[in-house]
């Protein structure tokens, strides 16, 4: 007992939290930097300019890491202001030293046999193409000042910090997506003048970055001030709020219609993909977000929709029209059957797992989803479904004599379906059925004791969710003009679930945000494609830690989690 207290009194002055905190944070930050260098993503970041010849994405990434480190120390520390700043400074120093350690290791040892990305080239880039000594000092100085900036940001008022961060994000977007934005601004006149002001051929200029930053900053501050004034004077009555919501929704739709026309067909294709995932996300949102039925086999419904379209419309030997009395249908007349088939499978899918709850439900649905995929690929189903070779020559939809062939027109088609689906989901959410789903999500037994028919409600959730996925699958099949079993892997189920988590469970706008971030962004940033799942993992962890309610939560879920925090 005595030795224990002695031991305590010995160790305590040696490692007070004031030293441990920056040490720990600095080491973690340094290791993160080393990790990103070792897996090779840092190298790719260095090749992408944010501001032409001035700032690369790699510099920005490292600076952000150090700034986060400083901000974290500032927030966690319980010391007085100047000591906190010193702690942040120290954390930056430690992170910088670790990075210098990496540079030394790369130049002195040959690490390439294990980590191909750790080349002498990388160390040259890291040391700003200066000598070893000067470069190392620069790394440490940069790391320390970035950490200090992070701490400074945390010490600012919420409004100022938010505006600053969002302005920086605007610059980042303007820089990283310069190619895309430049294409969108390719028209003459005033638009061209804006482009020339901000961009040169290779990307964003320093002047352009400054303009974007200040413009965004001023706008954000003005908006913030207006919001504060509005909140202070009168509580907005619900009617104008609803009207402004409707107005912003209409504006969003107008932008969605115009954007692919302006930005070109590649973006049209990306948006098409995103909208397909939005459609699926809305379906899964009914199952998981509202009814709380965790479904890991969601891709099965997507596959059923796609294969139904293929069987009914394709000009191939597997088409039903070939060996049955059924006529060959066009896309529009086959679509209801595809949705119906998916709904039926959804209900069939729901039946065996009706009394399965929680984690077990996830495992059971995972199995059911795999069964569908394995069935499609099996030899037994090969004469009907074409096995691994799939079914080819699925026609594109026509409107009159106009063929919806290019991705942009298919995007518009999907957009229409997304709007319809969103309307249905929105109406159901506030209805008797929606409330029953939420009751089942919160406490199934109590819901049943209040007279809610669990079988009916659950099967409706599975069926409706599946209908949305079937619709998405039908469009997917006609987009690719072919279906293969390998398009319907477990990964799609996981992607849809992940976008729900990132966007916010039970929230329709959240589905869109999640789909843009997890599906759209990786498509636009093709060069980082290898690291897509690294990005997924990091984003999921960050969202779960920092914003567990998702990026755009439903108002109710937001209240809930905030309340839990307070309580």
């Amino acid at each position, binding site marked *: 007992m005595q030795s224990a207290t002695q031991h305590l009194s010995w160790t305590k002055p040696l490692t007070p939290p004031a030293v441990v905190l920056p040490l720990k944070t600095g080491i973690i930050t340094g290791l993160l930097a080393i990790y990103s260098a070792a897996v090779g993503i840092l190298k790719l970041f260095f090749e992408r300019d944010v501001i032409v010849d001035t700032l690369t994405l790699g510099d920005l990434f490292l600076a952000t890491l150090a700034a986060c480190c400083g901000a974290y120390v500032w927030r966690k520390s319980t010391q007085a202001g100047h000591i906190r700043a010193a702690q942040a400074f120290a954390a930056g120093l430690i992170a910088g030293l670790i990075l210098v350690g990496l540079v030394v290791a790369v130049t002195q040892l040959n690490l390439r046999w294990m980590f191909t990305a750790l080349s002498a080239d990388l160390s040259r880039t890291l040391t700003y193409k200066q000598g070893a000594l000067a470069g190392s000092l620069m790394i440490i100085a940069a790391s320390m000042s970035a950490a200090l900036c992070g701490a400074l940001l945390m010490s600012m008022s919420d409004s100022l910090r938010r505006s600053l961060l969002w302005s920086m994000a605007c610059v980042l977007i303007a820089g990283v997506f310069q190619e895309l934005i430049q294409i969108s601004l390719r028209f003459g006149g005033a638009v061209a003048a804006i482009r020339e002001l901000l961009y040169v051929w290779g990307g964003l200029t320093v002047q352009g970055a400054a303009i974007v930053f200040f413009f965004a900053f001023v706008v954000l501050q003005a908006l913030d001030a207006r919001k504060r004034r509005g909140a202070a004077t009168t509580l907005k009555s619900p009617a104008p709020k609803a009207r402004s919501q409707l107005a912003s929704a209409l504006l969003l739709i107008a932008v969605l219609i115009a954007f692919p026309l302006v930005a070109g067909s590649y973006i049209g294709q990306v948006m098409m993909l995103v909208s397909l995932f939005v459609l699926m996300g809305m379906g899964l949102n009914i199952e998981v977000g509202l009814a709380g039925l965790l479904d890991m086999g969601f891709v099965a419904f997507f596959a059923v929709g796609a294969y139904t379209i293929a069987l009914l419309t394709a000009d191939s030997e597997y088409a039903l029209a070939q060996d049955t009395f059924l006529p060959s249908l066009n896309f529009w007349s086959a679509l209801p059957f595809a949705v119906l088939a998916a709904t039926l499978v959804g209900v069939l899918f729901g039946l065996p797992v009706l009394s399965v709850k929680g984690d077990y439900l996830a495992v059971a649905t995972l199995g059911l989803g795999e069964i569908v995929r394995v069935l499609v690929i099996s030899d037994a189903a090969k004469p009907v479904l074409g096995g691994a070779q799939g079914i080819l020559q699925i026609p594109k939809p026509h409107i009159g004599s106009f063929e919806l062939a290019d991705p942009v027109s298919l995007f518009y088609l999907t957009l229409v379906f997304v709007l319809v689906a969103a309307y249905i989901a929105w*109406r159901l959410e506030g*209805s*008797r059925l929606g409330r029953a789903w939420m009751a089942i999500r919160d406490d199934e*037994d109590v819901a049943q004791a*209040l*007279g809610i*028919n*669990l079988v009916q409600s659950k099967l409706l959730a599975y069926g409706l969710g599946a209908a949305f996925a079937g619709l998405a699958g039908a469009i997917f099949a006609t987009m690719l003009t072919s279906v293969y079993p390998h398009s319907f892997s477990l990964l799609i189920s996981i992607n849809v679930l992940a976008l729900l988590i990132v966007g916010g469970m039970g929230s329709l706008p959240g589905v869109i945000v999640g789909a843009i971030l997890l599906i759209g962004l990786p498509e636009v940033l093709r060069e980082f494609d290898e690291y897509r799942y690294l990005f997924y993992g990091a984003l999921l962890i960050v969202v779960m830690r920092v914003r567990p309610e998702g990026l755009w939560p439903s108002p*109710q879920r937001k209240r809930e989690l905030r309340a839990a925090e307070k309580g």
Partner: protein
Amino acid sequence: MTTPIKAAQRLGETQELAPVLLRTSDLTMRFGGLTALDKVNVDVRRGSIHSVIGPNGAGKTTLFNCIMQANRISSGDIHFASERLVGLTPDKVAAAGIARTYQNIRLFTGITAIENLLVGMHRQLKSHWWEAVINSARCRLDEKKAHEEACEILNFIGLSGRGDMLARNLSYGDQRRLEIGRALCTKPKLLMLDEPTAGMNPREITEMMHFILRIRDVFNLTIVLIEHQMRLVMQVSDTVTVLDHGVKIAEGDPAHVKSHPAVIEAYLGRAAHRQEQPA
């Protein structure tokens, strides 16, 4: 002393007039080797407040679960009004006209107070799910009526103005009353309250007592009450059933039960005898 006598008088009246609403016949519930309820016969008369008491683990809550058909009973029978409940699912039991609350409050914590009540009204709303999508006239009327009724209930349980609060943010007493309000929303004939005063102070218990009497009178209900607060049991009950280790050991009006030797033994053990012997 006056209150038990009054209760007994009222019992006398009701016993002669009121028919049996709920009857369990030889109800037995076994969990593996444990017999939670052993051939329990209980008659609950229409319009009465029927208390079920007993030491912890006596099988009181199990009795509720069995009536609600949340557990499949081992043997015996349960009849409600003229309907046989055994074999139904809990939602069918609710449809027959039984609602319950729980010992540890089980609200839908993630939704608001008024939404909790609206979930309770689920069975009253007749519109189909697709009518909500097309926003049919019947659906709108249904929703409007449900909202009005929910607001009335909200008033009755003393939560007016707090309808938009999340259920989990309500105070403890409010949560208790909201849970009762949610049960009332199903328009039951029989309301089963599982320890409605658990964790309350004496003043709150008195309030709850008056509240329970008011529910019975306003909604014209029959109430089955599990309770540990003897003061409340003795004052509001018409009939008291005492369970111990799954066996019904006594039944009758509060005064009768209070002085029943088996009840005293179940609650106090044989301490009285042991004290007498050495003396």
